[in-house]
Every structure is written in C-alpha cells, then in structure tokens.
C-alpha cells in the first residue's frame, strides 16, 4: 500500500535562528505589533510504499530513532504521522502555539513551508532514505523548513498576507525568511487562536 507520510522536527533547545528572525522582524522590519510567535520546524513529506500503514510508520520510525536519519535525538523532537495511524515521536505540535496575546484581537498561526527550487535535491534525499529502509519504498519527497508564524490579524486572509510579507525578502526593508530566487513557499495550514 501507499501511504502519505509527514515528519515534523523541532529543536529541543532554544532555537537561535527563530529567535534572531523574531528580533530582526520586530526591531529592523517593524512587524513588532503584529508578530505574536515564531517557531521553526524541519519538514519532510513523502509517499511511502510498504505492506501495512503501521509497518511503514514503524520502519521509518526505526530509521529516525536508531539510524539517526532526519533527527539527532540529543537535539530534536519529532512527529511522524500518516494515514489515520496514531503519530509517532515526542513532538506535540498542538502544544506549540504561543500562549496569551491580547484578548480583544484575533490571531492566526500560519504554517508556511519553504522549499528550495531544486526537485533533484529532494529526489536525492528520497533515494538515500530508501537505501536505509527495509521493505519500504519512498517517492515524491518534499522537504524544507516550516515557519509557524503567529500574527494578530482581523481575518485569515489578512494573516496569510502578513505572514507572506514576513516571509519573502523583496528588498532590504521587506521580508526576511526566504529568498524568492532560490526558494518557494506554500501555506500548509492556518489555525485561529
């Protein structure tokens, strides 16, 4: 069977990259009032082919835990999911939303996936991962970095627009998190807080 598998990975310790991004967005690019939270994940999505859904997840999980594929157990938390199976790993994504914020304003968490414009690179990862898995074939690998940007905004579409302004470096004074000349983004989802 073929299973769409997703893996989210986050640092256990303070993420200095996210912290610097936040300081830069607030102090240098004037997003101070709207930016409520910024969390960064590594992300992989793929089609995995094997006998059963639990078996596929089990094998990828083994590669993660024992083979050191994708994560470094000393530094990372992860969440591996696919189909309707209970997710594996120690990362509780739903607890990652920032707490608090002004009660009178609506806020949205926008999950933005940033990928390099190089599909051959993702295919390379897939074949290398495939080499480490027993009885599971991997295809259609998609990987990159996810920025969960939480912003105060009146509507979901306004929140997405604001997140995209933070994402895309258009000029010295506009945008930060990706360079559109070698990276692309897509919105994976939003959540109203």
């Amino acid at each position, binding site marked *: 069977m073929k299973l769409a598998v997703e893996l989210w990975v986050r640092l256990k310790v303070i993420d*200095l*990259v996210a912290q*610097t*991004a936040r300081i*830069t967005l607030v102090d*240098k*690019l004037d997003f101070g009032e709207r930016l409520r939270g910024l969390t960064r994940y590594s992300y992989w999505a793929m089609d995995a082919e094997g006998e059963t859904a639990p078996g596929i997840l089990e094998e990828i999980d083994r590669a993660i835990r024992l083979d050191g594929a994708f994560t470094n157990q000393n530094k990372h938390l992860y969440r591996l999911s696919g189909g309707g199976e209970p997710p594996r790993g120690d990362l509780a994504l739903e607890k990652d939303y920032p707490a608090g914020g002004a009660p009178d304003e609506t806020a949205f968490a926008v999950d933005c996936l940033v990928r*390099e*414009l*190089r599909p051959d*690179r993702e295919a390379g990862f897939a074949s290398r991962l495939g080499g480490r898995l027993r009885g599971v074939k991997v295809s259609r690998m998609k990987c990159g970095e996810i920025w969960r940007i939480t912003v105060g905004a009146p509507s979901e579409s306004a929140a997405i627009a604001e997140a995209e302004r933070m994402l895309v*470096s*258009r*000029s*010295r*004074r506009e*945008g*930060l*998190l*990706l*360079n*559109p*000349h*070698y*990276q692309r983004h897509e919105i994976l989802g939003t959540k109203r807080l």
Partner: protein
Amino acid sequence: MANSFTGAVAVVQFPGVNCEYETAAAARAVGVSAAIFRWNEDPAALDGCLGIVLPGGFSYQDRIRAGVVAAKDRVMDAVSALARAGTPVLGICNGAQVLVEAGLIPGIHWEKVDLALAPNVMADREGYYCNWIYLRREPTNCLWTKLYGDGEVVPVPVAHAEGRFTTEDAGVLEEMKRGGQVALRYCDASGAVVPSFPVNPNGSVENIAGVCNREGNVLALMPHPERAAWLRQVPEDLGDRWARRRRAAAGDQAALEGEGPGRRFFAALGGAKGGSR
C-alpha cells in the same frame, strides 16, 4: 573609542565574520589605511571613508540565510547611502551575500532583492567547498577590477557553501550582462569558461563569480582576493603564470612578499577618492 574612517578603508565586523584582519591587511598592502568598524558603532564614523569592505565569514552565524540578518542591520543604512553616493563598496564571500540580500547588488532596482547566492551545486555533493579557482575579468566598468585587463585570468581561492548566483528573473540577468555588471566569471587556467565543476565550483549561473552595480562602485565577489594578495599565498602546483612566478620565486622571500593575483582588487582603491569616484 569612536574611530574616524576619513580617508581610510572601513572593514565592517559583523558578529561572526572571520576575515576582517587579513582583509584590512590586504588593503594596507597597497598603501591605504584600513581599520575595523564594529557593527554597532556609530555609522556616522563612516562618512568620508575611502571605501567599505564587507569581509568574509559567517555574519550572525548564517542564521536564516547567509548574509540576510546583517543585510537588515542598522549599519547597512549607512553603507547603502554611501554606496549610492559613489563610495566604493566590496563584499567578499559572506560580504557578497550581505550585498545581494540587501539589494545593493545588482542594484538595478533600488535595494530590491533581484538575485540569490544559493547553496552550492557540485558534481557529487553539496555543502562547503574550499579550493583555488580561476577568475576571468569580464568587460565592465567595475571600479574594483579596473586594474585587470579584459579577459585576464586571476587565480584566487573560494571557500563557501552558498555561492551560486541565481535569479528567477531572466530580465535581470540580461540587464546585468547588458550593463557590464557581470564583472568576473569562473574559468580554467587558460581562461575558458567551462560550465561544469570544478571550473565552476558552485553551479553559478553562467559561471558568474562577481557582480557589480551599474555604476561600478559596488562589487559582490564570492572568491577571496585577500587570500591571494601576496605571491606567497599562491599554491606552487597551480597551472598558470602566477604559479610559474611563484615557483620561480622559491628561495626569494622578498619576491614572495610581493604582489599576488588578488592584490589589484585593493589597489583599485589607490586611485579612488573618498566619497566619490
């Protein structure tokens, strides 16, 4: 504490850069004075400087993306304004990444990000690569390469993981070429621009190694001329005239302390005046 950089080259030290001292030394080797400007000092001190060099290294640890955090720093307001007024600005390696992320290069649209220095693409791997390569000086009005002849081959080292010039805007590339902004290309020892690795060490589009602005006073350069400013630094085993000169100088320390292939990037400042060209 406050330094003045009047008539001197300012080498900007962002946290994490690591080539500031040898870069200042290479500037001094051509007889101009040079000093280190710590990123959070008062940028007014840069007024009247002879030139600004953003040296190599890992500013802000390459957090988010190489060069982008420094590109948003306060000192870049001053660098941008001075560049616009004609002050010579050279970004080497990480400094080139800062200039591209700050939109000062290619500078076709003011401070707009029109290029990227993307992760290297090599024959069989990715990541960091350090080696000597050859540059070919292209027809250009770039101030920093004015002392090299058209087509001249210059050996210098590269050392980076993100040096692949690329753009999603074909018009920008055309305009760069038309405007003489492609100042330097990777080539082999004979000057042939071979698109494959290792002649092109990072997969850069059209072998581009250095891009200047239209006015020619700002250059983003991935290789390190300060590591090739003395003849001593040239490897004996390279295959061009500089290596022959290097071998012939064996046993002659004075000759080896003489000019190396990268020195004329800095010597170009000798004729430049502070604040304008």
